[in-house]
């Protein structure tokens, strides 16, 4: 069990609800992922008129904790308005805060992000900010009152995997007490396992599952990878050696000859 905000969770995989071939496949994939938290976008659904009700009901019926997001918002003000609307619609103070600064890469606008986080925390929200791997931005978000950080591995939907593992490790080292969820850019189960092995508390997956040929099977694959990565982290990974040194003397080879290699 681990703690995310006010909730105890068993699964360390959070899942998205966009881009599936159909809502039926989405629901099946969400079940297969064993996720307990699902993110939902509402920007384009006319939340003020509840026009996406039927789709959202399918998500509510999964019984998962809903994490609404502010996808598509470009300023702090827009994101704050969307977060308040989401709180009404889904009766939750959780918000995955996204403020987009670049339309092509969907890279977050980190200035606007910190500003929106400050406003929303003061307003009683549990803010889960989608951010870059930047340490100083992370500090700004923590100072703004965020109790969770969601750094990207790579741009949303790119499937590139962790592009800057060093910075992700730095975040883990500098914020050992803050739940870190790797959000965006993970394309393969092995990417998810890699960040979990670094000690991340969870991962959020959407495109990699939704755009697979078989989203349900891919959801299972990610669930297994997240388990493997976490278990490996807890088990304590061996340290890689610089050279392929035999761990015991090779019988028949005197140790003073061993650096000569095969002739």
């Amino acid at each position, binding site marked *: 069990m681990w703690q995310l905000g006010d909730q105890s969770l068993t699964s360390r995989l959070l899942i998205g609800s966009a881009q599936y*071939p*159909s*809502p*039926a*496949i989405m*629901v099946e994939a969400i079940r297969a992922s064993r996720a307990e938290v699902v993110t939902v976008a509402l920007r*384009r*659904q*006319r939340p003020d*008129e509840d*026009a*996406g*009700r*039927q*789709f959202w009901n*399918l998500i509510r019926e999964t019984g998962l904790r809903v994490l609404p997001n502010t996808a598509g918002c470009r300023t702090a003000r827009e994101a704050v308005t969307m977060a308040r609307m989401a709180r009404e619609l889904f009766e939750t103070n959780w918000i995955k805060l996204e403020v987009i600064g670049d339309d092509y890469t969907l890279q977050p606008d980190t200035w606007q992000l910190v500003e929106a986080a400050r406003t929303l925390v003061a307003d009683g929200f549990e803010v889960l900010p989608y951010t870059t791997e930047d340490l100083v931005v992370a500090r700004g978000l923590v100072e703004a009152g965020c109790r969770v950080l969601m750094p990207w591995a790579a741009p949303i*939907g790119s499937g590139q995997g962790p592009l800057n593992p060093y910075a992700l490790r730095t975040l883990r080292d500098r914020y050992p007490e803050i739940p870190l969820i790797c959000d965006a850019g993970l394309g393969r189960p092995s990417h998810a396992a890699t960040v979990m092995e670094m000690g991340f508390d969870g991962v959020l997956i959407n495109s990699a599952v939704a*755009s697979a*040929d078989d989203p349900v099977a891919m959801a299972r694959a990610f669930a297994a990878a997240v388990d493997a990565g976490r278990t490996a982290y807890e088990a304590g990974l061996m340290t890689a050696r610089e050279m392929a040194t035999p761990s015991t003397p090779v019988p028949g080879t005197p140790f003073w000859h061993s650096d000569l290699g095969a002739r």
Partner: protein
Amino acid sequence: MSATLGIAGAGLAGRLLALAMAERGWDVTLFDQDAPDGTRSTTYAGAGMLAPGCELEKAEAEIARYGLQSLPLWKELLARYGPTVYHGFTGSLVVAHPRDQRELQQLQRKVEQRAAESGVVQSVSASRLAELEPALAGRFRNGLFFPVEAHIDNRAWLDALREALCARPVAWHTSTPVARVAPHRLVTAQGDAHAFDWAVDCRGLGARTDLPALRGVRGELLYLHAPEVTLSRPVRLMHPRYPIYIVPRPDHVYLVGATAIESDDLGPITVRSVLELLSAAYSVHSGFAEARVIETVTHCRPAFPDNKPRLLYGDGLLHVNGLYRHGFLIAPALIQFARQYLETGSIPAAAQPIMEAYPV
């Protein structure tokens, strides 16, 4: 005495079924919320694309199968009811900008993997692309060609069906929405019950009164008049977020669509959607810069949670609903199944994946 048939909904499916059964001597009555021009139907709002290959990217295999089955039926239908309706059986093209090549590769991989036969999709070079659509010469390095795909002027076709129906002894109650479709019985929104041997539901989202699982998936598209652009077949642009299609109509008119938003909002098109559709269209051909926006269209596609259509059958009852974005693609095949069920009471083998006894 001939069998009586009441049909709720005079969109594409309702009209095709009414014609097919009237020609077999059935006594057919149509009910629809709309006027005979059908401008409120999703048929009128669609683009009339027959793309069984491209649809393999997201749709279930049955959709492609019914789509392929429908292609020769379309040729017969056009010859019979709409010889002058604009159409093209010349295939369709898919292109992508250099940095979105991955989308093109992914589409090709998925289609090849899911297609029942080879040859559904072909890689084409820049020179072949220029042969097929000279207007695209020098604009794209490569593309995909789906040779068997086709397109039909949906609005002209709707009108051709109206004429065909009016020339036959079919009773057509316009401006008469149906609230309930029950065995042997249709009940209008005004509360009038009409008895028939068979009651068939061909409504769009209106069928939610009986089938609450149906949901709306909002689609938006634009009509452009672009004298500087000459394209003879549908062109799709792959993009990670703004995939679009451009479908030609006579006289340099093009449909540019379409969004797919999980919402049953029927309100006017949004600025964001216009920006996305037009930027993408302009990136395909700069001649769209001086095009006129002649119309914007929004509607909601009726879909079941798995986005597959259903033929729900019972004694004296048949629902033909949830055609989603595949109305033109699969309607002829579905109407063939419906006709067979009405005439013989048997379930065609090919229809089994989408036919269910109802109520369960």
